[in-house]
């Protein structure tokens, strides 16, 4: 059977890895290529690079970064942040990314998922969702776009179900409420998502302790766990995470 995946996330701004709390107060975490290669050597299953500036100028930088990462990293990696067209997806895949994540563009034009899936296969198409607990409807989450700055009326779970039908091959589900807090993943959200879709779900936002990873997999049903602060700033190595999970009966690639 598939092992559960440990995925360090590298948020990139001006060619540096940064990490904030609830998308704000960014701290520097190092050089993206070096950090990516280090995590790969340590046994990470995958990497995610998100261009959090996503301006036209940073687009070219992102392609160059992807090329450099691909020359040094021999595990799969996903790239995202500001991707708007199928041509951009094509360019990033050609530059060496395994998968490309789309977020705002898919909300604005859901057909991008279908077109990308038809052209590159669903396995390349990751739908990233920034989810925030609804203040008005309990037990519901709303989709936020433009790097989390703009809330929409779209229900997170309904959107994911629709995206799966269109051709998304994976959901990268970030809880904005939990992001950077190190207080644990939003497993109510993760569980609602993994119950609703049949494609892999990457839980994101909130990892601070090893048991949080276990909880996201067992309580949240996640196929993969993404983390940033816990790897960039804490003393946990990928190996420690995997040994911990294996010790609690979770299949990992170790």
């Amino acid at each position, binding site marked *: *059977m*598939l092992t*559960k995946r440990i995925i360090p996330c590298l948020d990139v701004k001006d060619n540096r890895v940064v990490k904030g709390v609830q998308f704000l107060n960014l701290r520097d975490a190092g050089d993206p290529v070096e950090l990516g290669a280090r995590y790969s050597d340590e046994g990470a299953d995958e990497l995610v690079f998100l261009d959090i500036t996503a301006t036209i100028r940073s687009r070219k930088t992102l392609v160059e970064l992807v090329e450099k990462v691909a020359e040094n990293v*021999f595990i799969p990696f996903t790239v995202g942040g500001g991707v708007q067209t199928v041509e951009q997806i094509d360019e990033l895949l050609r530059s060496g990314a395994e998968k490309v994540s789309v977020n705002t563009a898919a909300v604005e034009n859901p057909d991008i998922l279908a077109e990308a899936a038809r052209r*590159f*296969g*669903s396995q*390349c198409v990751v739908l990233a969702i920034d989810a925030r607990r609804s203040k008005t409807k309990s037990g519901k989450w709303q989709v936020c776009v433009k790097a989390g700055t703009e809330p929409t009326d779209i229900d997170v779970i309904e959107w994911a179900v629709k995206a799966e039908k269109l051709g998304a091959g*994976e959901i990268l589900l970030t809880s904005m409420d939990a992001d950077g807090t190190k207080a644990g993943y939003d497993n109510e959200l993760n569980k609602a998502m993994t119950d609703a879709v*049949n494609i892999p779900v990457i839980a994101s936002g909130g990892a601070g302790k090893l048991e949080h990873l276990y909880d996201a997999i067992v309580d949240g049903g996640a196929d993969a766990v993404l983390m940033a602060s816990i790897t960039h700033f804490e003393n946990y190595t990928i190996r420690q995470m995997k040994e911990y999970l294996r010790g609690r009966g979770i299949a990992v690639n170790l």
Partner: protein
Amino acid sequence: MIVVIDYNVGNVKSVCNAFRHIGCDNTLSREPKVIEESSGLVLPGVAAFGYAMSALGALAELIKEVASAGKPLLGICVGYQMLFDQSSEYGRHKGLGLVEGNVVGIPAGRVIPHMGWNLVKLPEGMDLFAELGEEKHFYFAHSFYADVADSDAKIAYADYGFNMPVAIQKDNIYGTQFHPEKSGKTGLKVLQNFAEICKKN
């Protein structure tokens, strides 16, 4: 020189990068002369089957010709699927027909795509897996798989709720559904083994 076939689909460079990383001469090309003179061919592929076959275009005949004449050929992911007779991904598409079998959807009732690291049982006598032991994890990302029907092919399997064929060897034709170029050190060893096979050719 190993030639990685350049045919306008995603992520062909990763294969070149991996060969370069292990010190193996390779080039990305779609020139018939370069392909004919190569020591071995790699047909990579991150694409839907139909798109990949049409992108391959006239190169399909050349690949069939040189592979039938004995040149080592390694298909990866969709490049592996294209070795077979046909696929039912987004309609019915003809493959290269070098290995008997059809590419079909992974049966429902499990998470699809099959994406991530799975344990592959490595049978003895498959040259790609020399010195790798009995089983290893490899990285997969696919929704379709090859239902191998060729009695001349050696087959490696992974468990995905059913016994799924994930790699084959038939004479000089090799294929992996998983991505050796993205399977860390284990995957690099598979590419190294293919490079050795090409050297002997």
